[in-house]
């Protein structure tokens, strides 16, 4: 029997590059073999391994919703060796993609609920896969009110401005709250950190699920704030980022206790998170 090789990437072509911030770009990619889309079938919140051949691989969350067919989007912050190289890449260039990996946001459990997304910086990238999934016309009626609270260091550091200020606010029953860390000339929006803005908005936990992702320090204070507001541990969902290499539960580095984040995560409810040792 011929074994498939999960560590062998599919070749894909970059079809579009969007400058989001000074250090974040969104890459739209298409598999060279269109048949791969039929087997790839990602769910919101899953991740993939992006290859630049001769440089290496990095784990990146899939930021596009599975409801957008025929392409994948990855928003990538320039932080290391591989991400610096990919930031120089242009449409037409080839990369490798393997995946999708990990569990996904519990979008079935969220049906009938109001949703509150809380993101910081590049942390909005994984949330966006679920936001666009929920807002897609074929799914919108399954979910209640959608609120998105998002913050970045400065207005220039806001990712997905076209979604934040245009696409999302135009959707029915959808509200977007944006904040930046420090006051800025020409900015008449909210100023302050995400957890503080959250406490200010004080959203009622009734029939609501929150989904949060951002820098570890933001997540920590957001979780504290949500508990203070009366959210139960099952109403709070987050997605973690750890260093990964294989993505398939073998190479050993993304474990938190007995769990491998690449296969058992990256999505955890606060209840699940509290059962894990604090090593992430």
């Amino acid at each position, binding site marked *: 029997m011929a074994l498939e090789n999960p560590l062998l990437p599919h070749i894909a072509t970059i079809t579009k590059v969007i400058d989001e911030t000074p250090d974040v770009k969104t890459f739209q990619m298409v598999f060279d073999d269109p048949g791969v889309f039929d087997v790839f079938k990602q769910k919101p919140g899953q991740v993939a391994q992006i290859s630049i051949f001769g440089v290496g691989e990095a784990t990146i969350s899939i930021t596009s919703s599975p409801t957008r067919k025929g392409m994948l989007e990855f928003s990538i912050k320039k932080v290391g060796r591989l991400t610096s190289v990919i930031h120089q890449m242009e449409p037409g260039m080839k990369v490798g993609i393997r995946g999708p990996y990990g569990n996904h946001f519990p979008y079935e459990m969220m049906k009938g609920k109001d949703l509150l997304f809380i993101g910081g910086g590049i942390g909005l990238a994984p949330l966006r896969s679920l936001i666009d999934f929920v807002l897609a016309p074929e799914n919108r009626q399954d979910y209640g009110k959608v609120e998105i609270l998002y913050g970045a260091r400065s207005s220039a550091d806001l990712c997905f401005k076209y979604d934040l200020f245009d696409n999302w606010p135009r959707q029915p029953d959808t509200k977007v709250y944006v904040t930046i860390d420090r006051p800025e000339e020409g900015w008449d929006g909210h100023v302050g950190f995400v957890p503080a803005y959250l406490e200010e908005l004080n959203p009622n936990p009734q029939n609501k699920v929150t989904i949060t992702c951002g820098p570890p320090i933001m997540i920590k204070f957001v979780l504290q704030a949500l508990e203070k507001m009366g959210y139960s541990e099952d109403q709070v969902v987050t997605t973690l980022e750890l260093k990964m290499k294989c993505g398939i539960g073998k190479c050993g580095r993304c474990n938190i206790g007995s769990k491998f984040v690449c296969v058992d995560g990256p999505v955890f409810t606060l209840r699940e998170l509290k059962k894990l*040792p604090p090593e992430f």
Partner: protein
Amino acid sequence: MRKGYILKESFKTWLGAIKEKFPLIAPVQDDGLTLFKEVEKVDDIVLDYGITRMPPKDLFFPQTEKMFRIKNKNNVAIELESPEKVTDELVLFGVHSCDLKSILALDPVFTTRFPDRYYQERRDKTYVIGLSCTKALPTCFCTAYGINPTDADGADVHLTELGDKYLVEVVTERGEKLAAAIPGIIFEDTTNLEAEKAKLTEKVKGEIKFIDLTGVKEVLDENFELPLWEKWAQKCLGCGICTYVCPTCHCFDINDFNRGDGVGERFRCWDSCMFSDFTRMAGGHNPRPTKKERVRNRFMHKLKYHLDRYNIVGCVGCGRCVQRCPENIDIRAIISDIKGGV
């Protein structure tokens, strides 16, 4: 399980017949070390060794292995070429019970949920012949994990040297296939030999200091923070030798080699949770920033995590890490600390 025996006087002939048919990997002396290597002549095989310097895991999971060849023309044209499928069967001979168990402990990592082609192909093509220990070393402690030094668990065919015969236990279907391919096993009543084997088991067990693991898992289940981790981390150099000689450690790194013109390969190589780089993310955050977290992770993996995840031991008591640690960090002493409330 079918049982039989091979007369000692015809044993080398039997091994020779294996070698005629298959590449034969067995413990041999290599520059003063006992290592599993491909055998040139059956006389080179060391039958009475204590423990090999390295475990046999590299047969299925090599220290470095090419995953595929890359031809990358300026990121515009990419060609990937996978290595040839492993088609040749081979025989791994002379594996002691601890190492046999370690293969069973690695199998679920590599062969379940996203089966690893590289491991699985080699594993499927290998006949494993176990060999009972006839003596123990001061560092042996397999019995702590319920392993007897004569256990056949993990072997396709298992041998035990008893007087002028080797008791042969044909354990698996694959073992039957091997027994059919290589004549020489006399399938007659082995009641007496089995009684002899039981005596040998007791003799070797008697040479092993029993480590009682009662309660250890429970303490680790309940306590992530224990002062003992800091104590042992202070000794640890972070050299990682414990993970390289460990038969159940399976961590690896994946890297690309590019010779400069876009031609190169992607390879994986053994890695170690004892290194700070292992978990440090590109942005600088490191969930296991100091040796304390890393030492804890390694021993928790051995005594708890692997067991939680795969329901099979993560340590087999081979004692290689005890032998090789430059700082005498001894998992048996750590177990004793866990039980003693340190």
